[in-house]
């Protein structure tokens, strides 16, 4: 690892790269890049893929679009959304603006709070906002910081620090248990080296257990996992489903982190990272970015009511992800796989409503909601 000054600066250096890899959203295919890696052919399939709207109709029944209200002080840039059960609306955490927004079911802005900075109500890389059963709002920064606000965001109830950063995923398992996906880079904090899931007790503000250490063998995979090693989770009842960016498998755990099983993901269009391909020169940033765009990265997993999974992955051109979506059965059976889909922001576990960015939208404040069709 870097020396001490660099180690301290690491979150600030790492976060923009990760943010651009994780958070950005550009559903429409764009013209071919001038990339030296010949990616163009990968994005020009022999059989044309359905456009974004057609994909949504294929998945289910689209509702009327949602347009998130914006003001001079509120603009949606890099957003992650959670469902706000207490209101039927949404909580949006914006990593770029470091602002938390509460929206109503139709996109009306109810309130906003938090901002960029290092103060008690401030974040540097806001990752997620979730409503707790108490009505309070839990907000997580991408690096080591958690804040609990009162229900209206007007007061900080308490704050805490975690050893996890960068944070890739946040899942509330119950009132006291938070599942954080990401890395612990401070070796003093590591109880399970390489583990990427961490159970955090919200009542005691302590790390209970770290688990899920995906195998990362080979030079290319080690490098790829360092810069794009996302982990994503979803949970149903007492079981956690987890994916790692480079591994075509869904892993299942209980709430104590014990492994219950695994299901292969039946990808047909996933571009696997090749260990035999030559590695790029890392002394210039464009080459490194092109290399990151030469393989697919799993970004999200969603567990639906019928037990099936939606796996979202991305292929990148430059700074832009091209989103792909695979639907599979609980036993690993293939249902469908589509490329150039709009980004799936989240799935409401209560009713299997899928919320995407609206196909063709230039901005992340326009969403499409789809009721998943039964299959």
């Amino acid at each position: 690892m870097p020396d001490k000054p660099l180690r301290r600066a690491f979150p600030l250096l790492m976060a923009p790269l990760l943010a651009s890899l994780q958070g950005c959203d550009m559903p429409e295919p764009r013209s071919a890049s001038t990339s030296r890696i010949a990616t163009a052919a990968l994005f020009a399939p022999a059989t044309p893929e359905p456009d974004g709207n057609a994909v949504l109709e294929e998945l289910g029944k689209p509702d009327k679009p949602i347009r998130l209200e914006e003001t001079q002080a509120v603009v949606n840039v890099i957003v992650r959304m959670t469902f706000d059960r207490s209101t039927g609306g949404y909580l949006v955490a914006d990593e770029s603006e470091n602002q938390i927004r509460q929206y109503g079911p139709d996109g009306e802005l109810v309130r906003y709070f938090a901002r960029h900075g290092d103060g008690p109500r401030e974040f540097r890389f806001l990752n997620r906002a979730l409503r707790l059963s108490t009505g309070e709002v839990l907000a997580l920064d991408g690096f080591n910081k958690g804040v609990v606000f009162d229900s209206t965001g007007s007061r900080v109830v308490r704050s805490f620090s975690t050893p996890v950063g960068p944070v890739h995923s946040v899942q509330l398992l119950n009132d006291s248990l938070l599942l954080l996906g990401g890395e612990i880079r401070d070796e003093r904090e590591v109880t399970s080296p390489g583990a990427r899931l961490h159970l955090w007790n919200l009542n005691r503000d302590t790390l209970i257990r770290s688990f899920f250490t995906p195998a990362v063998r080979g030079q290319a995979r080690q490098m790829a996992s360092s810069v794009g090693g996302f982990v994503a989770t979803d949970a149903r009842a007492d079981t956690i489903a987890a994916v790692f960016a480079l591994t075509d498998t869904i892993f299942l755990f209980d709430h104590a982190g014990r492994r219950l099983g695994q299901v292969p993901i039946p990808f047909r269009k996933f571009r696997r990272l090749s260990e035999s391909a030559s590695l790029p020169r890392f002394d210039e940033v464009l080459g490194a970015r092109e290399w990151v765009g030469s393989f697919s990265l799993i970004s999200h997993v969603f567990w639906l009511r019928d037990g099936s999974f939606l796996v979202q992955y991305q292929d990148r051109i430059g700074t832009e992800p091209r989103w792909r979506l695979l639907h599979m059965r609980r036993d690993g059976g293939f249902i469908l796989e589509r490329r150039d889909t709009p980004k799936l922001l989240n799935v409401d576990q209560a009713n299997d409503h899928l919320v995407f960015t609206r196909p063709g939208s230039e901005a992340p404040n326009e969403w499409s909601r789809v009721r998943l069709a039964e299959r």
Partner: protein
Amino acid sequence: MVTRTARGALILALLLGGGGCGDPRAADPLPVGREFPGFARSWAPWEVVWVIRPEDFLTCQTVARGVRAFQRAPGVPVPVTVVYVGDSHADWVRDFLRRQRIQATVRTASERQFADWFGQPAAPRVYLLRRGRVADQVSARDDRVHLARRWGRAVGGGEGRGGG
């Protein structure tokens, strides 16, 4: 196998790129009063020019939040031109600006062209121009700068709100 140290070095290389975030050898900003060439200008009385290189938007913290807030602040609209100094991938800059919800005209120049015009290498800076000449500048890597507060009054607008 890649050692932990080597991996760390590689990550940093990826993050820092060739010129590097915070590279102490980065070129000086263009001085106040310096005239910009016509290609980089919108010819408005007040305008903003953001000089950006690949490593500045691919890996480093940027002033994007400040530029975005400045554009959304009430008052006189000030056009923004982004001068991308690089030999390829101008489309990546346009993607970056769209994702950051910044409306700007993108002009491209090679490093050599930029040096020929200004007599020095490009530095990541955001310039406020008054009738085509530098009136003020800030580092384009400063993610805390509040451009609306700094420049809003001068260009005839309010101080703006929100992050900057």
